[in-house]
């Protein structure tokens, strides 16, 4: 590729600026905010997966917490029962398999439906997992949840969590995030991604042009759930603890909220949403005991006033400025 052209391409320039910004984050943020930032990255990965279903396949899942939980509990279980392989390069693949299997089982039931029924079903199934995690406390720790030890990364071990979270894990997370971002970016622009969008727009016609609608929805469901599982497994290391709450539909609702907050019409929207939501929630919690009400009110305002989300809002303002400039020029 022509290097000069690459450098002067506007899009690559934005990517470069963002990348540099992400690289120096650990030197800018306080340890507390860095941990928040890290958990936001894991939610951003979940959001990427979630939006494959919502934006590109037209399916609203209200149970993505279940696949997040599958990834998270896979890590916790290995930590509890097979500590000998408790190292991140094993844990991530195990989490991927766990969430893939769970989303295949649940997906099989859910993809036969669309719209509200799909939403209720995903919700009910995630609550099934919640009930199991909650009640089988001898295995899962019940409502107390399970402790997540600090893992080793490629043989390097860490004595204390802060040491692990302050640098090495951040960059590990960043690499995984960039991979997930690129993979999803390719998926949505691939022929497969186009097939999903065709199904979203017109199921009848998609069937007519030879797309197996349910099967493709199923594939999308699995990919989406697996992304949630990757996010969940990465999140546990930041949080140090996992409880069944991540499989509760409330948590799934937060994933939906994040995505809409950022703006699901835009590929990067859920990522922006993940960051804003993570900080908003934590600061709301620190500010008042009525943080749920605050989240609720912002959600209501968002739906009524800014349905395209923050990213959508920015784009609208940008377009307005552009047209004004053009008008001014003539």
């Amino acid at each position, binding site marked *: 590729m022509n290097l000069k052209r690459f450098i002067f391409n506007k899009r690559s320039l934005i990517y470069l600026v963002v990348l540099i910004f992400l690289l120096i984050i650990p030197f800018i943020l306080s340890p507390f905010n860095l941990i928040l930032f890290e958990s936001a990255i894991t939610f951003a990965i979940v959001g990427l997966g979630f939006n494959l279903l*919502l934006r590109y396949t037209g399916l*609203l899942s*209200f149970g993505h917490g279940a696949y997040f939980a599958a990834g998270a509990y896979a890590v916790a279980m290995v930590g509890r029962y097979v500590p000998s392989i408790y190292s991140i390069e094993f844990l991530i693949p195990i989490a991927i398999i766990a969430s893939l299997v769970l989303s295949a089982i649940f997906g099989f*039931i859910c993809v*036969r*439906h669309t*719209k*509200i*029924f799909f*939403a*209720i*079903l995903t*919700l*009910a*199934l995630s*609550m*099934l997992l919640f*009930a*199991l995690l909650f*009640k*089988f406390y001898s295995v899962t720790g019940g409502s107390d949840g399970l402790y997540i030890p600090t893992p080793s990364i490629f043989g390097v071990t860490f004595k204390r969590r802060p040491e692990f979270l302050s640098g090495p894990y951040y960059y590990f997370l960043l690499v995984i995030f960039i991979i997930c971002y690129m993979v999803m970016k390719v998926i949505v622009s691939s022929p497969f991604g186009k097939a999903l969008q065709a199904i979203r727009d017109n199921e009848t016609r998609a069937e007519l042009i030879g797309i197996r609608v349910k099967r493709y929805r199923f594939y999308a469901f699995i990919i989406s759930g697996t992304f949630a599982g990757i996010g969940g497994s990465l999140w546990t290391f930041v949080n140090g603890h996992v409880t069944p709450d991540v499989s509760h*539909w409330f948590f799934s*609702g937060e994933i*939906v*909220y994040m995505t*809409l907050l950022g703006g*699901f019409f835009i590929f990067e929207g859920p990522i922006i949403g993940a960051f804003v939501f993570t900080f908003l929630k934590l600061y709301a919690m620190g500010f008042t*005991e*009525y943080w*749920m*009400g605050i*989240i*609720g*009110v*912002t*959600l*209501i305002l*968002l*739906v*009524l006033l800014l*349905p395209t989300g923050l990213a959508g809002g920015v784009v609208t303002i940008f377009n307005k400025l552009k047209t004004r400039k053009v008008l001014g020029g003539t």
Partner: protein
Amino acid sequence: MEWFIYILNGLYYASTIFLISLGLNIILGVMGILNLAHGSLYAIGAFTAAWLITSLAGWNSPDVLSFIILLGGAILAGFVGLLLERTLISPLYNRALEYQLLITFGALLLFEDLIKIVWGGEAYYASKPFDILGKVDLSGNIYPIYFLLVIVIAIVVKLLTWLFLARTRVGIMLRAMSLDIEMATALGLQINRLRTWAFVLGAALAGLAGALVAPTTPVLLGFGMEPLILAFVVVVIGGLGSLKGAFIGSLIVGEIRSFGIVIFPEIELAILYLIAAIILVIKPEGLFGRIKS
């Protein structure tokens, strides 16, 4: 004859779940909206009833008043439903599903904190109606009469709702709307007013359910969460927007729960979800669901 008691318990559970899921299903069928704040309306009904009963305790009032006052829960929940529909939900009828779901989710979060602000974070104990009625000896088993009363009320409500939908003008119009909204529009029905009707009715039913449960258990924050999920399971088993489905689904859920608690204590909820999932694998649209394209 213990199983007899389990069946009765199952009917009692089914009765409250039925009232909730009936409301949920009316809203779903007529408006096409899944109301995630439905559990909060149930909780509002419960808190109102519990608060009224405990406030009344200091006065020397006739016993029957503590039963009549339970209706306060249904009335307030219906009123809150009216406000909710008019302010937040009505602007969203022509918008995509995710917005409709999220606005009710936002309302749910808001209600949880409003309940905390209005009624405080402490539990309400309002067992007076339960205590007044006492217990009855059913072939050797002592059983609370209040549970039987709730079952009777649920049956009466079911019959009244059926009559309302089958015989009254508004009821017939509501059914027409749930079958074919475009046709209903073409016939010149006042769609917006009917939607408000449906929502208020659904909210009041949820409030009634909460009020009826209030005397049997401490009323706490997060009171509406589990019933809401059970109502979802009923909707899933019975079929989307089907009133018959709500009835049969509630019976199934109530009985499974009652027997599940005895046979599989601890995991009775998981068993319930599993059975729901199996029903769906066999009959994807639910027992009485119409497949909507």
